[in-house]
């Protein structure tokens, strides 16, 4: 049906549309801008799950706003695996949050090159971040001697195990390669998967394993040399580490079989560990945040141990250093000062951070020089021990490197994608390492390698 409208009505409608469009401009422009202190700070957080998110709102967001009257903190929770893509898309459209989270220092460089990050040196002086934060971590946020990002969510790789099961079998967590292999064979013979493992939910998680095998087989000295360009990644010491991992997967030690390793999701593999269908799990310290959930049904106990050396000459207690994210300030942030105040509150306020770390293990780990006495007595002693062990080992220089923190982003993506082809037999460990060396050499020439700290020099 055709309904006529009068010219007056039409003009009135057109006027409203035009007015709407006219208003939309300034409103949309308000999302970006050059600064001036709007009092609103937008932050996209990678916290997942109702528990951590509610904790954040109640114990971090509200207290921060109370302590910083006039600053309105707007928090949006984004899936951690999608964060970088969402941020890139938003920034490309001239939008994005005031505080930008990246997956790690190696990923921050492209943003800096595109002039999307504000320099933080002024705020570092104001909040004395040089005095508060660990020097090695802060150095990872510098680019051409200017500070652009603040390291966050300090991580390491651990060997989790079902304590009840392992003790029932009269075993102990392995302390050497021989112990690990004999334990794995015995467990497999009894129908228990030695290591709960799988990349079905996040294929990129395959990088945990080259990270662990390179650190605990090749060793941090060899990795330092490779990351600084002294030796190539095609060196036999790296190839052998990949061969060893591949060998273990083909034996079905990781996830039960190669096919299951490809398809197992995190919930399933964690449930296997909690139910005693699997004995151990190699994963980052972030798993401390929800490991208890998977042991509730069985009532079993869990614990963690340092990953064992897989070759002679590798330190017995060696922890890979990793950062789950970095925090930077959007160059277009309206209230950059408010954003800096929040970063300081979130990362550098030792007393508060220790409380949050005790309440929600691992997810709020800031690179601060903690001692055991900094943490409340209510903290799970396994978490306290993990933090203390990491701190002590780092003090001795017994640290290694995680791929997602110290490898440039393209080399990191190469590891994530090509490692699967080694396991399927499409490429050999040697071809994999040669390809990595090629990609890494290009990355190095482009200046994409973050600052590498020397083992023993923390």
């Amino acid at each position, binding site marked *: 049906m*055709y309904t*006529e*409208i009068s*010219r007056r009505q*039409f003009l009135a409608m*057109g006027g409203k*549309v035009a007015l709407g469009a006219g208003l939309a401009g300034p409103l949309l422009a308000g999302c970006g801008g050059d600064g001036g202190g709007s009092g609103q700070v937008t932050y996209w957080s990678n916290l997942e799950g109702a528990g951590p998110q509610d904790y954040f709102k109640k114990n971090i967001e509200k207290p921060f706003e109370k302590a910083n009257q006039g600053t309105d903190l707007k928090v949006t929770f984004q899936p951690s695996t999608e964060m*970088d*893509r969402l941020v*890139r898309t938003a*920034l*490309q459209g001239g939008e994005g949050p005031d505080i930008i989270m990246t997956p790690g220092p190696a990923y921050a460089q*492209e*943003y800096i*090159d*595109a*002039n*999307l990050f504000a320099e933080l040196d002024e705020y570092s002086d104001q909040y004395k971040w040089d005095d508060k934060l660990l020097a090695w971590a802060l150095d990872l946020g510098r680019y051409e001697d200017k500070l652009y990002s603040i390291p966050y969510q300090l991580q390491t790789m651990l060997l989790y195990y079902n304590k009840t099961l392992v003790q029932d079998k009269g075993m102990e967590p392995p302390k050497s390669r021989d112990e690990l292999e004999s334990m794995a064979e015995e467990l497999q013979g009894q129908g228990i998967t030695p290591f709960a493992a799988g*990349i*079905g939910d996040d*294929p*990129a998680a395959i990088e945990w394993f080259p990270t662990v095998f390179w650190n605990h087989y090749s060793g941090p000295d060899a990795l330092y040399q490779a990351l600084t360009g002294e030796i190539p990644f095609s060196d036999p010491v790296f190839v052998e580490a990949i061969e060893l991992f591949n060998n273990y997967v083909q034996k079905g030690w990781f996830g*039960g*079989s*190669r*096919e*299951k*390793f*490809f*398809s*197992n*999701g995190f919930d*399933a593999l964690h449930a*296997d560990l909690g139910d005693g*269908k699997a004995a151990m799990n190699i994963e980052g310290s972030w798993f401390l945040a929800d490991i208890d959930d998977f042991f509730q049904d069985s009532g079993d106990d869990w614990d963690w141990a340092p990953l064992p050396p897989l070759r002679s000459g590798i330190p017995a207690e060696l922890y890979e250093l990793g950062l789950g994210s970095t925090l930077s300030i959007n160059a277009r942030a309206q209230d950059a000062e408010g954003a800096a105040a929040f970063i300081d509150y979130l990362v550098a306020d030792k007393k508060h951070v220790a409380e949050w770390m005790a309440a929600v293990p691992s997810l709020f780990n800031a690179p601060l020089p903690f001692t055991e006495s900094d943490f409340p007595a209510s903290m799970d002693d396994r978490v306290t021990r993990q933090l203390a062990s990491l701190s002590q080992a780092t003090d001795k220089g017994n640290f290694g490197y995680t791929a997602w923190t110290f490898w440039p*982003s*393209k080399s990191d*993506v190469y590891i*994530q*994608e090509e490692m*699967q*082809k080694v*396991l*399927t037999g*499409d490429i050999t460990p040697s071809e994999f390492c040669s390809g990595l060396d090629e990609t890494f050499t290009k990355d190095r020439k482009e200046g994409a390698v973050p600052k590498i700290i020397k083992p023993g020099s923390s």
Partner: protein
Amino acid sequence: MEADRSTMEDGTGLAKYAGGSGLRRRRLLTAWLFMVPLLVINVLVILGPSVATIYYSLTEWAGIGPAEFVGLQNYRDLLADGDFWMAMWHNVIWTVLFLTVPIFMGLLGAFLLSQIKRFQMFFRIAYFVPYVVASVVNAALWQNILDPTRGIGSALASIGIPFLDGVSFFGSERLALPSVAFVNIWAWWGFILLLFLTALQSVDHELYEAARMDGAGRWQQFLNVTLPGIRPTFVFVVLWSIINSLLVFDYVYIITRGGPAGASEVVGTLLWKQAFERFEAGYAAAMALSLSFVSGLVVLIFIFLRRRGWEV
């Protein structure tokens, strides 16, 4: 002409004519003004990004920051990219699967449903439901059903039927692509069935009667009455299946992300990885345009066939 002139010379007629013309102009103007927002939206969300994609496909661009013009280099790289051709081959396999399995099932299901009156609506709804359920829900459902340790395989094994026990449908290089296609077909075929059923119901029943009187059996009736009767729908389904198969993304991305080791990679997931994991958005744009080119080619072939007199 005489009559026209006389009308124009007539004062009343002239006013009438002028009034009619003005009204038409107003109506036309109003229609165009209502079209403007739609046109603006289309320019903003379709034409603009399309032109931008063409431009970025000629650049080296990380997805953020400035883009460097490299001419046709991305397209030259694409021709030599083994991963791209492997993904394209997987799209071809996917297309073949979607041109056969769901169309056969849809036709058969529609024919069988057309023979019954009771519970027809129940079956229609039952078959159609998976199509309207979000792909992420369907994918999660089948990931659980086909889980190698907690799924149907181990359930069957527990009652003495062990042949699927421990089979990792989505973790096996051999099974991953057909398994994901199976999940997508499960969600898709009910929709095809409904399209065919609607088409079948529009075929004149007298034609069947005439065919029967001529001694035609069921199969001959299907070939000579049913198929010609539903040809427009059939061709539409074929065209749509081809284009959907070339652009497939969601189920592969959700279930396997193209793995293991690229065994289920299709061009859609590969270009997503290029853009958002490898940060080679310029190259991804070239890949996307190449895919659009192939889809466009399919449409052009159909248009060409129509012009040649095919009833498509």
